[in-house]
């Protein structure tokens, strides 16, 4: 087994171009995508009942609360027209009693808009109602509420869940993880499918009749593919940490650890491809198709939280990248603990075992 690793590493040293190119592409794409930001969501706000200064006061509070959304004063007709034409996700009409929300459908962003409105306007209304009922001055109630918020009687620990309501987005994290996991698919599958190349070249026959067992030969190539993929991830993440100061939510070690099940699944996927694909030409067609589809469906290019199509979300459940992204983003952005990581990690390991089992079995049964 060591002999095979020795030979493969020697060959890599002589021709490192493809490997370095993949690593470089990962870096470039992650940098390029990481610096672009999702455009700020603009929500038109209008009122026919409130005074200008009242509207401005509410707008100020709304914009302070939610930085991903810009609440902007607009003309009533124009605001409604923007919603009708789909140029705005929603529009808000401020009334004396609260607000009215205009929208054509429920999306992640309309949920965020609603949350902001409830927090800001709902909170104000509640204080006003208390003042009206109890006769206590509004400022005093406000003061008491503020002091209670600062010194709560009970401390509530909120456990993050994976629902869209907890959607936290960071473009750099999304692109670094997404692009790295995407490009590593190419590195690993092309490395593992060298088995196919070696069968075609007759080297495999020589290996089989040597004193090394077939199991060890498979293991050597799979191990090599695994290490190549993992080292690439390690390189890219380390470079982002050192050069761009990305802190990985203070969980760099955990992030690296969590990449192991994903790299394992992709190695297993490479084994499966080696078993089913018959020629390098087929491989050149299948690998990019598979990698791009998996990246799109698994949330490497954009967060799955913004996908609303149920069919696509269902398919995503069968894509390893979905679970890898969930784990990595969960740890970095939402402070996931092992309890939350257990399920995606388990799914990845099961996927890996199934793919590896099928791949090795099919490869054994047929002479490629």
């Amino acid at each position, binding site marked *: 087994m060591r002999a095979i690793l020795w*030979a493969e590493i020697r*060959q890599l040293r002589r021709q490192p171009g493809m490997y370095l190119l993949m690593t470089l592409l990962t870096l470039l794409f992650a940098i390029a995508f990481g610096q672009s930001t999702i455009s700020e969501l603009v929500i038109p706000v209008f009122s026919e009942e409130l005074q200008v200064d009242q509207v401005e006061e509410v707008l100020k509070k709304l914009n302070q609360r939610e930085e991903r959304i810009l609440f902007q004063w607009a003309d009533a007709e124009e605001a409604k027209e923007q919603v009708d034409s789909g140029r705005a996700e929603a529009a808000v009409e401020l009334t004396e009693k609260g607000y009215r929300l205009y929208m054509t459908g429920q999306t992640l962003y309309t949920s965020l808009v609603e949350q902001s409105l409830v927090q800001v306007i709902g909170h104000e209304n509640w204080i006003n109602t208390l003042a009206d009922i109890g006769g206590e001055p509004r400022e005093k109630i406000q003061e008491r509420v503020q002091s209670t918020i600062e010194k709560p009687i009970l401390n509530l620990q909120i456990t993050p869940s994976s629902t869209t309501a907890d959607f936290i987005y960071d473009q750099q994290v999304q692109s670094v993880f997404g692009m790295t996991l995407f490009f590593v698919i190419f590195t690993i599958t092309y490395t593992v499918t060298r088995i196919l190349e070696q069968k075609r070249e007759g080297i495999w*026959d020589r290996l*089989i009749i*040597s*004193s090394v067992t077939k199991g060890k030969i498979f293991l050597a190539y799979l191990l090599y593919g695994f290490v190549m993929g993992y080292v690439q991830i390690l390189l890219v993440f380390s470079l982002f940490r050192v050069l761009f100061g990305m802190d990985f939510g203070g969980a760099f070690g955990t992030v690296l650890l969590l990449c192991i099940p994903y790299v394992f699944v992709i190695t297993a996927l490479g084994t499966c491809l080696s078993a089913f694909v018959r020629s390098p030409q087929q491989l050149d067609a299948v690998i990019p198709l598979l990698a791009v589809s998996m990246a799109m469906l698994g949330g490497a290019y954009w967060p799955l939280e913004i996908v609303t199509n149920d069919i696509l979300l269902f398919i995503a459940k069968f894509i390893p990248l979905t679970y890898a992204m969930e784990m990595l983003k969960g740890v970095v952005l939402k402070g996931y603990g092992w309890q939350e990581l257990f399920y995606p990690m388990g799914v990845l390991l099961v996927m890996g075992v199934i793919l590896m089992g099928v791949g090795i079995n099919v490869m054994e049964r047929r*002479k490629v």
Partner: protein
Amino acid sequence: MLEVEELTKHFNDVKAVDGINLFIEQGEIVGLLGPNGAGKSTAISMIATLVPPTKGEILFQGKSVVDSPESLRNVLGLVPQELALYLELSAWENMQFFGRLYGLKKNERDQRVREILRLVGLEEKKDALVKTFSGGMKRRLNLALALLHQPRFVIMDEPTVGIDPQSRNHILETVRRLNREQNMTVLYTSHYMEEVEYLCDRIYIMDQGHIIASGTKEELKAILSSENTIEVKVDTVNHSFLEGLEQIPGLRSYSVEGKLITLIVPREMHILGELFDLARSHEIGITSVDIKTPTLEDIFLHLTGRTLRD
């Protein structure tokens, strides 16, 4: 040493090898001869334990190789038809790699690598990357890799395809030398008749998945002992002339290669007069006539009606 009984391999409906029987004694060079697609490579893959047979048995020193391939693999060297080499490694590194696979310790490995590279004439090129080698040098290294662990039995599948005459001679001489000096047993496949005639003690002729003849060169040639091979060179060949040729009574078979027509006729039959008359009537000039003793190529033609390179 090795016995093959009713060996059969089907790929779906295609019978690549159909119930062949053969045996090889220790120290023999046995040739497996046949045109492309005859089933030689499939037969060899089964004997080398690389492909399981659909039916039949392979016995090595009395033990089934199908059930336990290790008994053969430990003493087997394989020279595949493909150049099974790492092009990005040097000749020395290639040899070291396969030496490690066979578990040779460093000192023994280094010594063996040097010896074998000298044997195949690549000692001076040991540090050059294989991708810079000529076709002949790659073929010689392909052979060297199979000899590294001192196998008792070597299977060579078309080891001289597409190389220069010098490298071909080198390979043939090496095989012969190993056989004579080390009593190495060799199963050699080729569609180059002259190689098989030169090297092999016994020959099996395969066609369309079957063994159609076997024996020593002399035994095989005896098949045609009652026949003559006549090679006729003409200045042109046309269809009506060939039709006329088929009408000559007693002509067993013929083949045309450019302007050379090979005829197989019963020894007692004299057809030259008729042949000249036929040529004259079709205005074809005969430039030479050669009456030859039969070759393996003639035997193959006689048995199958085709030449080996068809």
